[in-house]
């Protein structure tokens, strides 16, 4: 059994409204010099068979049409 992390983020070129909103808000909060903000999802799970992970991501965890994923184990 291993603990795995899946990072899911909007595909390059796809609108990321959350990232935009956060980026726009930061200076007003006193945080300057922050750019290129993207907001995605983090899924953490224990898997018996890590080889299933790519299929799991494609089918359920991410939406491959609009999201990229990265598996960190």
């Amino acid at each position, binding site marked *: 059994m291993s603990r795995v992390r899946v990072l899911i983020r909007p595909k390059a070129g796809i609108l990321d*409204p*959350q990232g935009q*909103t*956060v980026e726009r*808000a930061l200076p*007003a*909060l006193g945080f300057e010099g922050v750019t290129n903000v993207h*907001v995605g999802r983090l899924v953490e799970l224990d898997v018996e068979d890590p080889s299933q992970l790519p299929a799991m991501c494609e089918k359920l965890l991410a939406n491959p049409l609009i999201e990229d994923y990265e598996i960190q184990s």
Partner: protein
Amino acid sequence: MKFGVVRFPGTCDEVDAYLAASRVGDAEILWHADPDLKGVDAVIVPGGFSYGDHLRVGAIARFAPVMAEVERFAAGGGLVLGICNGFQVLCEAGLLPGALLPNTSLKFTCRQVDLEVVNASTSWTNATAVGDTLSIPAKHTTGRYYASDATLDELEANGQVVLRYAAGHNFNGSVRDIAGVSNKAGNVVGLMPHPEHAVDPLTGSADGLKLFASAAAVPA
């Protein structure tokens, strides 16, 4: 009594709150970027989706310039009501205890719910009686009230639990069926359901008007 209703980018229910407050007093819209409460006697932080609910509900709005004034106003005993997104904002700002998490269903749900009045001595419930049932609509995706058990015990001991969902009406999974809470002094109240949508029997119920009437009755 003059109510100020805060408008952030993405706020949706400010006109309804304004109209509801106008039934019992005067009202004015307060722009998020103006650090000025325009001399109002009570502030309503209304519902909607400030900043699109992006990042985390209420997280960005709490930093708006007007909120610094609201915090100062509340600390001085000023009357503040947070409705739905406004409740979320007040929790994020630390004006109210606890936090709002996603409904257990993870779905947006719009439903008329019954609320039970637990504390009728806050500035926003003094026109009700303990045990009263109020029929008010709720509509949100992130309304599951959460606080640690220790905090909850303290809130209950202090009478800070103001409203509870009646049996069978807690659709979002809030701990201890909590629908609305207040700060210790009772001048700041937040709730997930929308009293501003329940001010006329023609549109379903007038029970929500009691909250506005309560504040209007507080000597300015």
